């Protein structure tokens, strides 16, 4: 006999309108974030494919032939290729996946295809995480997972009310949470990547770069994006001391400063210093090597090196949020020695640029003062020059320093730093430009300093004989309030500031502080949970050298225990038998012990009558119990006191 098709098998259960509606709705939810990034025509094409599938469902027309689907896929891929000139890489890959969700839907006839499309939905959720992993993204992810799960539940219970299916999906996710948490914490983590990533994997990260030309930092300063957060043990340093050292720029071509080649040196912690700060930094990925530290770094985090000009560099580009611990001292004793080659590099200037500045420096140098005199003269020049500090500096030509000093007299910190370094070099004082961040916002909620791109800053260092490299902030010299009070106070009132830096946005800022405190915890504990953090956590839980074998053992023990608890929970509500029934069974056992066994067909009335006849000594209690049982079981329903009485009577029954 040929077996009829298995009615629970997903291969034979056709996709109904309801199934399709759920599937499409959940796919629409998960592709929504991608729609903002994909080219408009691809979004439209995908939505058309969804709509087309509905058309087939409503008209009950046979689905399009495989060839047509392949043709649409080909056209879509051609379009993606025209748009990106490649089919691989993150962005084209993700939007192709979005297109395939529509194509899969178009060829879905049965629940099996539907389930595959639903699993594809899980992929689409994960691909969105390549772009953002913030708390709102996590919430959106939960909605997507919930919808897809409800869709799958709907597949396996097509006759059930959607509300009940939603409840089941919610229950499933709630039951999944403990296991998910255990897996998240205990699953042995491996540091990625396992293989090469596409070229564009790290596109679109903002931050400082290895070069600086007029306008670089003032552009960056318009961004509210977070550069890093620092959490200090104890007090945090006051605003004027918060110079976060980044790339040091040596080479100037007349317009642009570049970092050039850096030399790694063995790290020697600086001596003395006014104050020591211990803190941890959570650095946003910026796809470069440098790590930011408060000047002057007195310790090196793991997997990092120091260059001879005092930059802390990671061993690999920072492509994921990175957390590291740092120690810094303020104003340590500096090494007064420097190699001739380095000093020569710090004096080099392009010949035919900025002639007016060169002439001015030559004029200063003529009387033959010390380097300190020249430095003071330069600072005085900045202070008295009536310079304007602005986020919208005028565009400068080839002789950018000349134009800034003598014509426009308006600029952002990179103009001040660049021009001052050129002036010093021209006067014969070795100088270099340091970029980084200055200041940062102290969150009163969790005492964490948030440094944004808008805090980007550039200053200079000059080499003074006998004192070594000394930090000189030309911006601070010209505009003392920039460093003391931050960017917002230093700029004229009418300038367009990043929204959150505007003073009148006080209340908004307090909300933002709270939110950022939460977001910071999220970054550290959820997004920043990596192999290192896992080791730290295990150590703090008393598990030394937690290798993958130990972690796996603990994990499986936990998962096993959790499954048993879950199973016990689900059976608990079933295991409890009806107390009335239980009492009755106890009664039957008592009678059976005296030889009056109830036969399966015998109802309570017949049985008790027979028992009363067989045991005339206990006639009354037997009949009473039976009458009560009948009333409780078949009457108006069991009441609490009635049940208690039945239990008592059965317990007290002494068969004569």
């Amino acid at each position, binding site marked *: *006999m040929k077996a009829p098709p298995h009615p629970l098998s997903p291969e034979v259960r056709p996709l109904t309108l309801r199934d399709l509606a759920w599937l499409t709705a959940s796919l629409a939810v998960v592709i929504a974030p991608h729609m903002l990034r994909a080219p408009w025509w691809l979004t439209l094409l995908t939505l058309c494919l969804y709509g087309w599938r509905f058309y087939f469902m409503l008209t009950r027309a046979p689905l399009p032939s495989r060839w047509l689907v392949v043709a649409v896929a080909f056209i879509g891929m051609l379009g993606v290729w025209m748009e990106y000139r490649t089919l691989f890489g993150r962005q084209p890959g993700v939007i192709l996946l979005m297109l395939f969700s529509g194509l899969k839907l178009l060829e879905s006839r049965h629940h099996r295809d539907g389930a595959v499309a639903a699993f594809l939905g899980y992929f689409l959720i994960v691909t969105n995480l390549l772009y953002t992993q913030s708390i709102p993204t996590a919430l959106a992810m939960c909605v997507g997972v919930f919808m897809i799960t409800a869709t*799958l539940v709907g597949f396996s*219970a097509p*006759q059930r009310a959607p509300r009940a299916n939603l409840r089941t999906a919610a229950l499933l996710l709630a039951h999944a949470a403990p296991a998910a948490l255990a897996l*998240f914490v205990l699953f042995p983590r491996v540091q990625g*990547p396992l293989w090469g990533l596409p070229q564009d994997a790290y596109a679109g990260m903002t931050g400082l770069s290895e070069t600086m030309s007029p306008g670089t930092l003032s552009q960056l300063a318009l961004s509210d994006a977070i550069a890093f957060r620092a959490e200090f043990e104890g007090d945090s340093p006051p605003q004027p001391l918060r110079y976060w050292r980044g790339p040091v720029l040596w080479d100037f071509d007349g317009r642009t400063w570049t970092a050039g080649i850096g030399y790694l040196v063995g790290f020697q912690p600086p001596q003395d210093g006014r104050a020591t700060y211990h803190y941890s930094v959570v650095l946003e990925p910026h796809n470069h090597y440098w790590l930011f530290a408060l000047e002057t770094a007195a310790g090196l985090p793991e997997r990092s090196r120091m260059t001879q000009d005092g930059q802390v560099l990671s061993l690999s580009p920072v492509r994921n949020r990175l957390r590291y611990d740092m120690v810094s001292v303020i104003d340590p004793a500096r090494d007064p020695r420097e190699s001739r080659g380095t000093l020569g590099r710090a004096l080099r200037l392009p010949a035919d640029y900025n002639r007016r500045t060169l002439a001015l420096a030559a004029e200063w140098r003529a009387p033959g003062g010390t380097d300190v005199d020249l430095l003071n003269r330069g600072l005085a020049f900045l202070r008295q020059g009536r310079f304007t500090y602005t986020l919208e500096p005028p565009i400068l030509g080839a002789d950018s320093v000349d134009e800034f000093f003598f014509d426009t007299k308006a600029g952002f910190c990179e103009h001040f730093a660049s021009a001052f370094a050129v002036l010093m070099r021209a006067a014969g004082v070795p100088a270099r430009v340091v970029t980084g961040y200055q200041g940062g916002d102290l969150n009163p909620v969790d005492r964490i300093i948030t440094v944004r791109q808008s805090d980007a800053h550039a200053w200079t260092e000059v080499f003074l004989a006998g004192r070594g490299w000394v930090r000189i902030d030309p911006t601070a010299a010209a505009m003392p309030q920039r460093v003391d009070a931050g960017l917002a106070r230093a700029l004229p009132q009418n300038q367009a500031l990043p929204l959150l830096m505007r003073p009148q946005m006080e209340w908004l800022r307090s909300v933002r502080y709270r939110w950022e405190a939460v977001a910071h915890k999220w970054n550290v504990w959820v997004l920043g949970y990596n192999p290192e953090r896992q080791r730290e956590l295990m150590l703090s839980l008393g598990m030394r050298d937690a290798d993958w074998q130990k972690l796996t053992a603990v994990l499986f023990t936990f998962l096993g225990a959790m499954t048993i608890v879950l199973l016990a929970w689900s059976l608990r509500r079933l295991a409890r038998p009806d107390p009335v029934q239980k009492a009755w069974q106890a009664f039957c056992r008592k009678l059976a012990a005296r030889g009056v066994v109830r036969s399966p067909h015998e109802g309570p009335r017949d049985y008790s009558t027979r028992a009363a006849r067989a045991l005339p000594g206990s006639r009354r209690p037997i009949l009473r119990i039976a009458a009560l049982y009948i009333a409780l079981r078949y009457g108006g329903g069991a009441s609490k006191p009635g049940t208690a009485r039945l239990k008592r009577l059965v317990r007290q029954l002494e068969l004569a």
Partner: protein
Amino acid sequence: MINALLEKNPRLANWLYGFTPPEQGTVTLVHRRVYIVPTQLGALFVLTLTILLVGSINYSLSLGFALTFLLAGMGIAGMVHTARNLARMAVSVGRAEPVFAGEAAQFRLYLDARAGFDRPAILARHLRSRSQMVVDVPAAGLAEVVLAVPAPRRGWLPLGRVMLETRFPLGIFRAWSYVEPAARCLVYPRPERSALPAPAAESARGALRSPTPGNDDYAGLRTYQLSDSPRHVAWKAVARSEDMLTKQFTGEASAELWLDWARLAPQLPLEQRLSRLAGWVLEAERSGVHYGLRLPGVEIAPGRGDAQRAACLQALALYEDR
């Protein structure tokens, strides 16, 4: 291969699957009897999770890990839920109406949720006949399953083994359990259509009673009595009045008819004899005569009506040649 092994060793299969001899009364599917394995879709789900995990490692996606692990936890929870969908459900059987050999016996199974939650999409499949049905069992309620089991031979037809299966809620696991409630259906011999035998001389004892109530000619209405066949109730008249009324007929046949084993040709095989007798019973009942049945060792006194018919057919169904 495993199936072949189990077929050869029924005791091994019994032990492995928890097969039990037919059970009286209500059978509860204790969790020891519920088996569970992943489905093909489950394998696909695991594949999906693996890809998600590798992707999360490669791109260091913390939320990707979170999603992967949430789905993994959901898989485990799904397993428990699938097992729960069957666990501790109670199965009882209803009465199966007798059928003639060659027809299908309609066995009724009642699935009692015995739980505060509903148990959707439960497949009941009769293993021998592959007859199957999917039902949703409501919370704290019953669902009826009707399994049509072919009845090829007369006699008692035992229900046999029934598999209950579910893949709810995610379809990535299938849980199943075997039950064999002690239920049987009476199968009458396949009736053979043939003309009624002429009343024998000795069977004409009641010929004087006249007019005999019969099925042939409509004779009027009288009030309903409990023993009346529902086929004779004057439903149109009932609809008009409050009282149940029965149509009365008078039969022409006045004699008692004995359907006698001994009057069949001796060379006729046993089953054919019984078939012919069963055919006669039906014919006699239709024609409205009083009829009795005589088999070796069995004699059913003449009578008519549904009870008489059932008694005669049962005797034929259970007749054993000695």
